[in-house]
């Protein structure tokens, strides 16, 4: 049984003069072939939601005092948390790679008189910033620099 798209997909505002068969949906949607990466990209939204609330929990604890903060940090040692964070890291890197690849061409050829740099330059810059921010932030969080 083939999957259908929204029954109104690409339908004219007033129905055509003959009966039509309802639109099919792209056969590989959502999880097969060309759509897999797209669908996974969408689902990383769930990871980001959870990560955002976890970060909120950490920061809230930071405001509560040392005990609370250390307790939150310690709770992350639970294997389920570790597993989740490994998954989250994969998700975050996946989001970065996919989004950065698509980012340059989404820049208009010109905003007023300003032209964006060529795609290759944008892409390199994005990766440089990504790595830079990650290293610095990781160093801070690991108590490495500014310790």
């Amino acid at each position: 049984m083939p999957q259908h798209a929204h029954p109104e997909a690409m339908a004219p505002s007033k129905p055509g003069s003959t009966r039509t068969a309802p639109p099919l949906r792209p056969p590989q949607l959502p999880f097969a072939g060309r759509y897999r990466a797209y669908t996974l990209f969408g689902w990383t939204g769930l990871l980001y939601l959870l990560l955002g609330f976890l970060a909120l929990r950490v920061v809230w604890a930071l405001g509560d005092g040392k005990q609370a903060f250390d307790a939150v940090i310690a709770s992350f040692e639970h294997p389920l948390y570790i597993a989740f964070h490994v998954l989250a890291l994969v998700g975050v890197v996946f989001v970065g790679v996919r989004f950065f690849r698509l980012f340059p061409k989404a820049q208009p050829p010109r905003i007023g008189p300003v032209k964006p740099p060529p795609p290759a330059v944008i892409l390199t810059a994005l990766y440089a910033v990504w790595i830079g921010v990650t290293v610095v932030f990781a160093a801070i969080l690991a108590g490495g620099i500014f310790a």
Partner: protein
Amino acid sequence: MKRLLLKVEPILWLLFGQGILIGTLLLTGWVLVLGIAAPLGVVDPISYARAHDLGASLIGRLVLLALIALPLWKGAHHMRHVFIDTGGGDRDATVAPLLYLLAAAGSLVAILAVVRL
């Protein structure tokens, strides 16, 4: 509701985009250290005192706020799309506000959290 969504769509999209961009930049190191390396004992996590000092600075507060709020908007927006993609488009007018409210509530609490540092 639909009209309202259309009106605020540019903001939602901007927050979403920044959620991907800034969220990803910050979350990579955050997850790597606090979520994986430190719990496994590979590195020591930042001490409370240090964290509080840095976090309470102006820049620190802004970074923490971004770290919390932007991923929430990215998450809410993406989940809205996932919902539509799985055939829920007709109920978008109900589901989308709920998701965005979630992100908004999280963001409000986040502001409170960084203010009280």
